């Protein structure tokens, strides 16, 4: 990727990458691509969709034995939650905005906001920052899990302002190994119960974890779905699932 190229001295730092409002002759906005690199540097977050549920899972990083583990999964509303990869500060800013939108919508319309519309507005927010020279793109990717009147949904947002809906997806460091696992088990997900989906999400984290263990300290899971408001599973709550994976 770009970072390894920069380390190898292969990267083409050029006169078109100083600000986001400058196109390169190849038709790229380099600042947006560098922002997406920031997402790739974050630890892995993944999500998968079953018939009635969406499950998010992530590997939390810690700076050392004395430190806490960085929060990766956030509740936005009873029916929506996010997993992040990249600049946590940017993620918290977006999460606060999303929470306010959800609250305002519930107050005005006595009804939970449609996940797809909320995510569409986030994508527009991202795009704004790519068309102004005095701003910078958000340096975070979100996996937005929501359960609406028309069922479960998983969306990915990107610093570029692009928006994607997925059946399963992983972002962050070594996400490809998680994606490979998810692809392999994709067909079994619609028919799987919630416990199986959670087990899949934890098993999928093993690839990105590399040689380290996936344990109660560095893993986190969240579920949302039919008759299941958004719920975080952390620490000891993960123990029964992790035991099954051994």
């Amino acid at each position, binding site marked *: 990727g770009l970072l390894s190229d920069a380390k190898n001295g292969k990267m083409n730092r050029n006169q078109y990458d100083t600000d986001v409002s400058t196109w390169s002759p190849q038709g790229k906005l380099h600042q947006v691509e560098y922002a997406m690199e920031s997402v790739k540097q974050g630890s892995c977050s993944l999500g998968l969709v079953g018939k009635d549920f969406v499950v998010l899972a992530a590997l939390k990083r810690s700076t050392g034995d004395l430190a806490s583990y960085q929060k990766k999964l956030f509740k936005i509303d009873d029916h929506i939650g996010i997993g992040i990869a990249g600049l946590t500060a940017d993620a918290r800013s977006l999460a606060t905005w999303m929470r306010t939108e959800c609250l305002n919508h519930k*107050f*005005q*319309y*006595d*009804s939970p906001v*449609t996940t*797809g*519309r909320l995510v*569409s507005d986030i994508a527009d927010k991202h795009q704004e920052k790519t068309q102004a020279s005095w701003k910078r793109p958000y340096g975070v990717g979100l996996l937005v899990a929501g359960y*609406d*009147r*028309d069922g479960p949904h998983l969306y990915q947002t990107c610093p570029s302002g692009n928006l994607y809906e997925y059946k399963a997806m992983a972002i962050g460091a070594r996400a490809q190994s998680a994606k490979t696992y998810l692809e392999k088990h994709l067909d079994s997900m619609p028919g799987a119960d919630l416990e199986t989906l959670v087990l899949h999400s934890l098993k999928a984290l093993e690839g990105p974890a590399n040689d380290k263990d996936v344990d109660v300290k560095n893993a986190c899971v969240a579920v949302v779905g039919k008759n299941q408001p958004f719920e975080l599973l952390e620490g000891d709550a993960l123990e029964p699932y992790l035991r099954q994976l051994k």
Partner: protein
Amino acid sequence: MAPGQYSTDPKQHTLSPIVTGATVIGMKYKDGVILAADTLASYGSEARYKDVCRLKKVGEYTLLGGGGELSDFQYLSDQLDEMADEDWLNEDGCFMGPKEYSSYIGRVMYNRRSKFNPLYNQFVVVGKKKDEPAHLMYVDHQGTAFEENFVATGFGMHLGIPLLRNSWRADMSLDEAKALATKCLEVCFYRDCRAYCKIHIGVCNGTSVDISAPIPLNHFWGHGAWTEKRLEDDDPTATW
């Protein structure tokens, strides 16, 4: 005033209505909910506009019935149409229903009253969205908002509600509900000086929202007490 002059009076908003609609009746029935209102817009005590429809379809599943200032009803109707268009433009299969619209209208009405610039109306917002339960909400110019099985605004509150309390049932058929609403508006026509003998009935049944053509009401004036002279001819003070 001359150009450049400014008023030294404090800023004031209109607080008394000019062209007004009277009663609106709403009630749930077995398969949904109906709304009924007469076709009169009064100009004070003058029965000025006699062919006005005070019911409006909002979005896909909702009906709005308005009593009070007609221009405010029209203003809000236009705003709601814009909201419905934006809803449709999302093209995601999700549409706002009566719950969302009635909650939104309630918030608008309360906010306007809090700024001392009310929309001078009593609204009944009804609807049924597919398999969701039927919804019926009363919202007025003070921001009062509540959900009920049947409501009436204006004079209908005094004349119609007692009739509704006696006869309303949750499992009423559409014809029974229409008959009960018609009866309430008939009584209103007899006793409310601002009411009229032509009505609209709107029906929301989960799949469609329909407002009827104008329906004339029956009314009888041939009572003996009013047609026979009762006082003596040689009484100079007799008037009837």
